[in-house]
């Protein structure tokens, strides 16, 4: 390993050192504030370290990692989201029982796992990153031991995620068997020499798809998502919805683009079908959902159905739009879950949509943020979601994916109904007036999110130019 390798691994080293240092501090004294402050600092440092790394890209750390602009961008998104989630988590977790400090340890491990995923270009790093992420998520989901929901979600998540991992591994094994390489590029070049895909290879791809599809919660691997979303503590749900999914999408994109999966007719058709079914299933399931977290889970199924379009587009525009989409999706989802976790702090669990009745009159700012988030998810102009959808559809139709674009449109319409339901609920007057004041830091997070949503929605050119220039 060279010094350059170390420089390039700086963000990872920082993220990896954080849990160790926190563990050490806990052995000395348990002070949540210190841990919290330190966590923020570490996220900040690792974010800054990205700029240190930036001049040296692209850099390959053979054979496991590749640090290029694409991964840096995802890293930035992940660390940024991690930073905001840390604040939300602190506000949320500090209201819970004892043993709060360990939460942050695991949070960092999860972030590390996600970070590894985005730089992985080898099955081993892929697998390790994924498992690091997953295992820490099991713990985080079940973190609130006193709540049976939390435990149930944790167990379910663990079992199904393990099954999915097994599928993934088996698939990787099969691909390795067929191609003799575990490196993405190696797989791709081996594929290039093949005329047709052998059954082993196809089975391998399908099983790999199970692993990825499970994490992205694409139909038919989506069943766990609502239960876990609902059972997990709100900040953890936010973590799953943003960091975990973002990282998995990053690796999926990288793998898919490397092997040029869209060129294979069978894979193309299968993925198109999954995309369309995911859109419809997600949106239809969300339609009458009374639990906000479950609703967002279903909506996320649909959104990742949309995102498959970028994969299938198979163009640089597709990748750009995917990055933009995931960025805006993450900021938007953070907004939604931010509100949920902040509200859960002041009034128990704010899961049910009914809990949001009259929010506009109790705390207009929160209601506005939530509305913005919902409208952004629905893809209404002035918000990030609109531009994201625009880029996505544009990339899709440029590659001639009219059917997918068309079903996206239909689904956008269906989805309007339930997004609007949330908005409407917040604006209906209710009798019960609970004071809902939120801590300053919480407000700060919300402000950042609002600015993010609006900025991406009104002046998307800046960000999209950055994305375009980096790749």
């Amino acid at each position: 390993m060279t010094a350059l390798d170390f420089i390039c691994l700086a963000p990872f080293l920082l993220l990896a050192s954080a849990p160790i240092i926190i563990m050490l501090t806990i052995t000395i004294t348990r002070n949540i504030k210190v841990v919290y402050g330190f966590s923020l600092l570490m996220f900040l440092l690792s974010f800054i370290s990205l700029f240190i790394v930036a001049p040296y890209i692209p850099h390959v750390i053979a054979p496991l990692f590749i640090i290029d602009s694409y991964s840096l961008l995802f890293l930035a998104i992940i660390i940024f989201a991690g930073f905001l989630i840390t604040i939300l988590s602190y506000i949320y977790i500090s209201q819970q029982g004892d043993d709060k400090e360990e939460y942050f340890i695991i949070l960092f491990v999860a972030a590390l796992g996600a970070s590894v995923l985005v730089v992985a270009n080898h099955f081993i790093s892929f697998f390790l990153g994924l498992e690091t992420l997953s295992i820490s998520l099991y713990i985080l989901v079940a973190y609130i031991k006193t709540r049976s929901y939390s435990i149930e979600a944790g167990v379910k998540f663990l079992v199904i995620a393990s099954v999915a991992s097994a599928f993934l591994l088996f698939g990787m094994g099969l691909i390795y068997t067929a191609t003799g390489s575990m490196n993405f590029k190696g797989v791709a070049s081996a594929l290039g020499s093949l005329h047709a895909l052998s059954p082993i290879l196809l089975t391998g791809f399908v099983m790999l798809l199970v692993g990825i599809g499970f994490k992205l919660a694409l139909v038919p691997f989506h069943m766990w998502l609502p239960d876990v979303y609902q059972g997990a503590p709100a900040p953890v749900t936010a973590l799953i919805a943003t960091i975990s999914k973002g990282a998995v999408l990053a690796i999926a994109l990288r793998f898919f683009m490397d092997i040029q999966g869209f060129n294979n007719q069978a894979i193309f058709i299968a993925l198109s079908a999954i995309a369309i079914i995911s859109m419809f299933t997600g949106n239809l399931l969300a339609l009458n959902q009374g639990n906000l977290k479950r609703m967002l889970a279903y909506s996320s199924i649909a959104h990742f159905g949309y995102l498959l379009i970028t994969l299938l587009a198979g163009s640089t525009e597709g990748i750009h739009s995917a990055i933009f989409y995931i960025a805006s999706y993450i900021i938007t989802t953070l907004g939604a879950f931010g509100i949920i976790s902040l509200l859960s702090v002041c009034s128990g669990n704010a899961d049910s949509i009914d809990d949001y009745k009259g929010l506009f009159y109790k705390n207009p700012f929160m209601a506005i943020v939530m509305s913005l988030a919902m409208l952004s998810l629905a893809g209404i102009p002035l918000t990030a979601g609109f531009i994201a959808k625009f880029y996505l559809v544009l990339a899709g139709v440029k590659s001639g994916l009219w059917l997918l674009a068309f079903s996206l449109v239909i689904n956008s319409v269906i989805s309007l109904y339930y997004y609007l339901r949330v908005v409407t609920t917040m604006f209906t007057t209710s009798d019960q007036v609970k004071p809902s004041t939120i801590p300053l830091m919480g407000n700060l997070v919300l402000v950042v999110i609002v600015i993010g949503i609006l900025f991406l929605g009104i002046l998307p050119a800046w960000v999209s130019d950055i994305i375009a220039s980096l790749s």
Partner: protein
Amino acid sequence: MVTVSLEVQILFAGLLFLIGLVGLLVRRNIIFMLMSIEIMLNSAGLVFVIAGSHWAQADGQVMFIFILTVAAAEVSVGLALILQMYHHFKTLDADALNTLRDKNER
């Protein structure tokens, strides 16, 4: 030395995988389910070993070691969760875990 063709070897691993999967589907006890998952993971490990030997690379075995490690970590977390599950639900029946579900309400 009896040489067995690659296909047969893979088929064998696949069989193992299926056994795990079927076990997972038919057992309700959560501990048995975890064990089935272990079988599935190991069958995957087996594929890597087979492939490694087929291509005469060490990578497959490296991967296998990683799989073992990860499986161990998973099981440890799993067991901890099962403990908590028993604490809350007083049962190890996986089907009892259905408080989180669609309520079919408006």
